[in-house]
């Protein structure tokens, strides 16, 4: 080959290479700007799928604290355990290692790790949907190839049974997205606690920014309750002791409130619900009996009869009537608790002696037209609006209702034929304690939204009675505890207003026979009577000694002995001195 020929060939090769390069570059340009739209869309979709994934970012659920900052509900996590059989080398060893940790038989795990009949291994199998943190760590420490530990959020209730019925529970599904709050605060404030999730398109390459957020993710708002954990524990202990030491008692409630601002300080119910054993427990126990259940209150309802009469002005302290012991009602006989006549008792004596004939006479004289609107003013037959899920409205039959009768109107005067929830009853009595004004009962003291704390302002609900009538009713309630010798209550040093109640339990066609284990005993009261900071309702279901004065009153006394220490409520003489000296009569802020 001569030089000229070689030169020509090299030139030709150069031209060809440059030509090919130009064609490729031209094709690239065309590909970039003149691509078939369908091809372009397909390629872009493939790119999106490969580089991006759409996920829903779940917010953290809000925490729940008591008034002193103790956690009542918080978030934690446990693990979902899975494994990729196609990555496991020694199935027998892995099965032996995992069996005790995930709680499955060794052969079952071994079988899950085997290939199918075609010899194909699964890419992933679930071994346990939930194992706790310690177990998860133990599995991680085994360092098994192919093991997959996926943290899953869970709700934790550190105080356990103590606050379960008022906090409620968070449940519903394996994934947090489809779960929700039920009962109590969790149920009522579910939307606030849940926060707001967001949809995000995230890149598999972290340097690329997230996009397509429909809104910002917003963590749930945390709640500070009015509940005092120490008071709650006290109420629960006293209630448990009372019921467990009683041969026939089946349940009960102690409700503690501040009548001045409507705060709920403690709600203890029996039986309790264990949130750590939600699957094994009866879910019906999770409901808050103080709010969701109603009962015929019996004689504690007489304080409302008294307040109604005093406020309407139809009766005053000088009023008297002739007490026959038993009287003809409207189609039924109404008797005093002991069937005895007290002669011609006055207005106060009716309540001090808890005379059914007296209250029935008072209602008869006032008439249903005036009584029922007043009872509604006290919140009987209507929900109080407390911020706890599932509140009952109770039962208050009125003229025009199918099952209303004149006899029922008369028995309503002593708390039979009417049904209330414990919180309805105590809220109504709070009107007497708080100079005639009902404060809106509530359980949330503050909301924490990020760094912002929003305090709940106590609000007056309404005024069912005048201040004067409330003071007169209060003074009679003080005399009930001072003058009724049948009430087993002795707590010197403090002026306390109270009233006992013993209610028969309705059954189809009438009431259960009046005997041990067939009544609901209760006590309602507040202290210090002249400047109340705390009101209490004690309710015992089916106690052995069926009178409220013999069962509920001693429980109230036991509770008070420890409560005045815990709440730092000084005896009256000391309190008066403190006030005279300019000191704070109450050591703790309530």
């Amino acid at each position, binding site marked *: 080959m001569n030089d000229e020929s070689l030169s020509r060939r090299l030139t030709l090769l150069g031209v060809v290479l440059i030509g090919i390069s130009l064609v490729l570059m031209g094709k690239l340009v065309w590909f970039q700007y003149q691509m078939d739209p369908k091809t372009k869309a397909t390629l872009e979709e493939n790119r999106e799928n490969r580089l991006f994934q759409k996920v829903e970012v779940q917010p953290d659920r809000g925490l729940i604290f008591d008034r002193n900052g103790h956690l009542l509900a918080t*978030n934690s996590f446990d693990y979902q355990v899975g494994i990729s059989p196609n990555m496991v080398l020694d199935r027998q060893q892995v099965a032996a290692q995992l069996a005790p940790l995930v709680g499955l038989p060794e052969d079952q795990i071994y079988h899950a790790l085997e290939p199918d009949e075609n010899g194909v291994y699964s890419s992933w199998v679930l071994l346990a949907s939930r194992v706790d943190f310690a177990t998860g760590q133990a599995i991680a420490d085994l360092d098994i190839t192919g093991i997959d530990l996926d943290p899953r959020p869970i709700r934790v209730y550190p105080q356990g049974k103590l606050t379960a019925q008022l906090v409620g529970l968070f449940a519903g599904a394996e994934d947090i997205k489809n779960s929700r709050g039920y009962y109590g605060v969790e149920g009522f404030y579910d939307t606030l606690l849940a926060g707001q999730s967001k949809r995000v398109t995230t890149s598999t390459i972290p340097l690329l920014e997230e996009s397509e957020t429909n809104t910002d993710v917003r963590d749930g708002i945390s709640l500070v309750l009015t509940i005092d954990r120490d008071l709650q524990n006290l109420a629960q202990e006293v209630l448990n002791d009372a019921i467990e030491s009683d041969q026939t008692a089946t349940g009960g409630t102690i409700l503690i409130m501040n009548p001045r601002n409507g705060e709920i300080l403690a709600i203890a119910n029996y039986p309790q619900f264990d949130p750590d054993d939600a699957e094994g427990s009866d879910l019906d126990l999770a409901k808050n009996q103080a709010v969701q259940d109603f009962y015929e209150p019996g004689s504690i309802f007489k304080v409302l009869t008294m307040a109604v009469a005093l406020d309407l002005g139809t009766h005053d302290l000088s009023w008297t009537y002739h007490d026959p012991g038993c009287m003809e009602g409207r189609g039924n006989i109404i008797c005093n608790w002991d069937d005895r006549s007290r002669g011609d008792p006055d207005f106060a004596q009716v309540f001090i002696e808890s005379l059914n004939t007296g209250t029935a006479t008072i209602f008869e004289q006032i008439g249903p037209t005036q009584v029922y609107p007043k009872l509604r003013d006290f919140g009987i037959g209507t929900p109080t609006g407390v911020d706890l899920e599932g509140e009952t409205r109770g039962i208050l039959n009125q003229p025009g209702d199918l099952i209303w009768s004149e006899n029922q109107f008369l028995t309503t005067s002593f708390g039979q034929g009417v049904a209330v929830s414990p919180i309805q009853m105590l809220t109504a009595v709070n009107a007497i304690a708080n100079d005639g004004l009902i404060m809106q009962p509530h359980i949330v003291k503050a909301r924490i939204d990020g760094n912002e704390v929003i305090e709940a302002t106590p609000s007056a609900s309404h005024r069912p009675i005048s201040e004067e009538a409330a003071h007169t009713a209060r003074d009679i309630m003080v005399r009930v505890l001072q003058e009724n010798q049948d009430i087993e209550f002795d707590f010197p040093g403090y002026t306390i207003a109270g009233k006992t109640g013993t209610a028969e339990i309705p059954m189809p066609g009438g009431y259960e026979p009046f005997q041990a284990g067939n009544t609901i005993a209760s006590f309602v009261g507040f202290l210090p009577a002249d400047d109340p900071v705390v009101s209490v309702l004690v309710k015992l279901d089916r106690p052995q000694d069926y009178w409220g004065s013999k069962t509920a009153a001693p429980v109230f006394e036991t509770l008070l002995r420890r409560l005045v220490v815990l709440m730092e409520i000084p005896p009256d003489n000391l309190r008066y001195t403190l006030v005279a000296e300019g000191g704070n009569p109450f050591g703790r802020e309530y």
Partner: protein
Amino acid sequence: MADQNRPIHTRSDQPWQNQRQLVATLSLVVVVGIIIAALYLIQTSTTTTTARELLAMDDYRLGLELDNERLRADIAELQSLPRVMTRAAELGFREAGDDDIQYIIVDGYRYDRPQLTPTATPTPVEAEPVYDETLSGWLRKQWDNLKQQFDEWREGS
């Protein structure tokens, strides 16, 4: 004649000159391409490394958040009332009764006395000197600046 005097090998080498130029040009293009590719490769690998680091940090952050949540729950459970009461009993504490409480009256103390909020005394602020747009103004400004720098230097030393 002059052409005849030129050495023959010089003329015969001339075609190779063009080839060399072409090869040199192509080589240059290749080298530049390699350099660009290398730069791209370096950038890509740096990006990937950073991405991996970010992923690891993201995982670490998630782990820390989970640990915090778990610790908060653990602390709350350790501080739960039954545990605290059991521990207190082990340490010999008991619940106070009403006989154990003493209320003390402190003479002159009023719980609702007005809070005395200290009010700050306003510090006099020197007025900013105003310089006009004249020569003397400019000179004054320069002098003040110089003086300020000297003061700062003296305080610093």
